[in-house]
């Protein structure tokens, strides 16, 4: 799971939430390439290819990050800020998925460059609908940019045209 193509990075500390999210994603066949980080620090190590994840490459970023805000060690807002302020990671789509609908969280998230903000509905059916819609949109409908890594740039340079 640490190498190759990755679809979703789920950053969530609560096991219940992880299970419900995975259940919903699985139902929609969206959970084939998914990695779960249990706190903000792990998420950052993973995304910035460091610590336990040095063998990972910036060339293979996740297609979507589902980020909870209330996290141990480094909270979601800090993760968002770090990712969106670094040119190597700032194009990775980040969807905030949280219990709260605090106005200030909402505003702050968009300010820091979040691509979407979703409050997890209490109703489970609605939750599943939401997960499905988000997953389909970002993994299937949305066209991600070409990563500006060295290889990608070299490839462009040797374009025979």
């Amino acid at each position, binding site marked *: 799971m640490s190498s190759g193509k990755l679809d979703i990075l789920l950053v969530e500390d*609560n096991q*219940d*939430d992880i299970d*419900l999210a995975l*259940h919903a994603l699985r139902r929609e066949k969206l959970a084939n390439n998914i990695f779960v980080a249990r706190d903000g620090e792990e998420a950052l190590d993973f995304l910035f290819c460091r610590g336990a994840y040095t063998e990972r490459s910036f060339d293979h970023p996740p297609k979507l990050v589902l980020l909870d805000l*209330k996290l141990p060690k480094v909270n979601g807002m800090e993760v968002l800020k770090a990712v969106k302020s670094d040119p190597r990671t700032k194009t990775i789509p980040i969807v905030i998925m*949280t*219990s*709260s*609908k*605090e*106005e200030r969280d909402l505003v702050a998230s968009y300010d820091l460059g979040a691509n979407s903000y979703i409050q*997890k*509905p*209490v*109703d*489970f*059916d609605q*939750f599943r609908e939401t997960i499905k819609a988000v997953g389909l949109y970002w993994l299937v409908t949305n066209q991600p940019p070409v990563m500006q890594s060295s290889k990608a740039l070299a490839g462009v340079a040797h374009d025979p045209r």
Partner: protein
Amino acid sequence: MTLKENLTASEAALKELADQKFALDQHAIVAITDVQGTITYVNDKFCAISQYSREQLIGQNHRILNSGHHPKEFFQEMYRAIAKGKVWHGEIKNRAEDGSIYWVDTTVVPFLTSEGIPRQYLAIRADITERKRGESALKESLATSDRALKELADQKFALDQHAIVAVTDVQGTITYVNEKFCAISQYPKEELIGQNHRILNSGHHPEEFFEQMYHTIANGKVWHGEIKNRAKDGSIYWVDTTIVPFMSVEGKPRQYVAIRADITARKQAAQELAGQVEEVARQAEELARSRQELETQTLTLRSVLDSMGEGLVAADEQGKFVIWNTAAEKILGMGTATLATQEWSEHYGLFLPDMVTPFPTDQLPLNLAIHGEASTTEMFVRNPVLTEGAWIEVSGSPRKDKDGVAHGGVVAFRDVTRRRADEKEIRKLNDELEIRVAERTAQLEAANKELESFSYSVSHDLRAPLRHIIGFSKMLVEEFGSTLDPAAQHYLDRIQAGTQKMGLLVDELLNLAKVGRHAIGRQATGLNAIVAEVVAILESDIQGRQVQWTIAELPQVECDPVLVKQVFQNLLANALKFTRTRTPAVIQVSHQENTEDGQPVFMVRDNGIGFNMKYVDKLFGVFQRLHRPEDFEGTGIGLATVQRIVQKHGGRVWAEAEVDKGAAFYFTLGVGKHAEPKSNGATAGGQL
């Protein structure tokens, strides 16, 4: 002759001599002096006239009788004559013992020795005092007559020069006129003499006038009056006339002398003068009236000045005080005084607001005013009378005349000591209040923060386990439902319903808390748009029901659109809910302008089941419900939220209802009361 014969002859001679001496003594005043003038003999008549006794006279020098009337030369001449043996004759004025004067005709005969040298002098005198007196009187009367005659002549001359003189006989025939008479009457003397005086009658005076005149003079009395006469050329002249009748020995008028003065000019002047006098009198009256008015005004002004609470002082250009009212004296503790302007601050104890620096006299409002400058200032006064000191507020302005030229200045001032103290107290209280407000605000902010973190925790921490319960129970039903027995399935349903309900409660509670800390953002809001939005949302839930919406034209008001939308959402949802049993349900939204407190009132009315008004107090309390949950679902938070929002707008909400007859909810939004001014001015008319 024989001796006897000789003797007899001598005896006879002697006797004759004695007789002569007797006769002499009887008739004359006789005295004998020696050559030094010492009296050696006086006869009785001498004593009688001089009033001295013989003893007093004998041995005395004759000078004792000198009256001092005659010059020294008079006696020197007399002595020279008699010393040469010649007889001297003259009249001498002597003084008797009682000081009275008497004149004596005196003959002094010197008796000579055989050598021919005077031995003694015999003075024979006669009393001529009476004769002397008569002579003197005559002389005097002669002199007087002379003078009188001369004076008379002078007077006549003067009169002729000065006056118009005529003399008539008793018939009025003119017998004499002077030059001036001819000049004024324009008649030559010849034409007048012998004419009756009537020739000059102007016809101006009535008959009685002349009758009265003739009556007076005919009785020998002097007449005086003013007569208008006609001159020869017909012109008119006025004469002031005095007619003096001259009487005959029989006491009857012999002739009349008329003395006149030309008063034509005076008369004309008098006529003019009469007009002028009238004019002057009128002006005088007017002057008197305006003076009285002025006095009244002065009195009024005085009483106004004295009843004023403000001190008022006026000064002329030289800085001399001309007004100093009672209040001025009371406020400054001192009255008016004659001072140079530079002495004002010192005399009255005027200081700058630092209370120690004497007020610069050239900056005093009264001084500035005198120099044409208006000013207002505050100063401190402390003098021997106002030992505590006082604060006064002074404003000065120049006294200008109607041409705008400054003539001195006037200042009005009042004691602001109390006000200053009050202001100080108010400032202190304000500062304290500000500190308290700041403290309270800090406390409130802290409480708000706490509440915020609480609701944040609730929203995050309470919702998460709820979602988990719901999620897993759903998964249980989906994945193992078919293997569960019906009782277990029913329990699962109950768990799910309970958690759903709890989810709703948490969400609504969070919303209520959010409203509490939500800062109101007023903006011009069209309420009809909001109501339409809410109705659109609600209509999706009322399929199959017959609902009759009556939405009136609502105004655009200054309010927080997000919060007001929640108000309508709650009220309209309630209306829908409690009309569930009605076909059709009738829901009205309307508003009323021009209410008592000037705020528009909004109303949501339904024809639902209503409620009992005795529970109206509980209506807006959190978790308060008036219906059983089996009949009408609900959290009991909706109306509490409505009330919170309305109160945050500075408005109020209330309800009227009757069981089974429907309910009406009313609210205001503090429009025209707390509305902040907005540039679009949509509700400007209603703002205070």
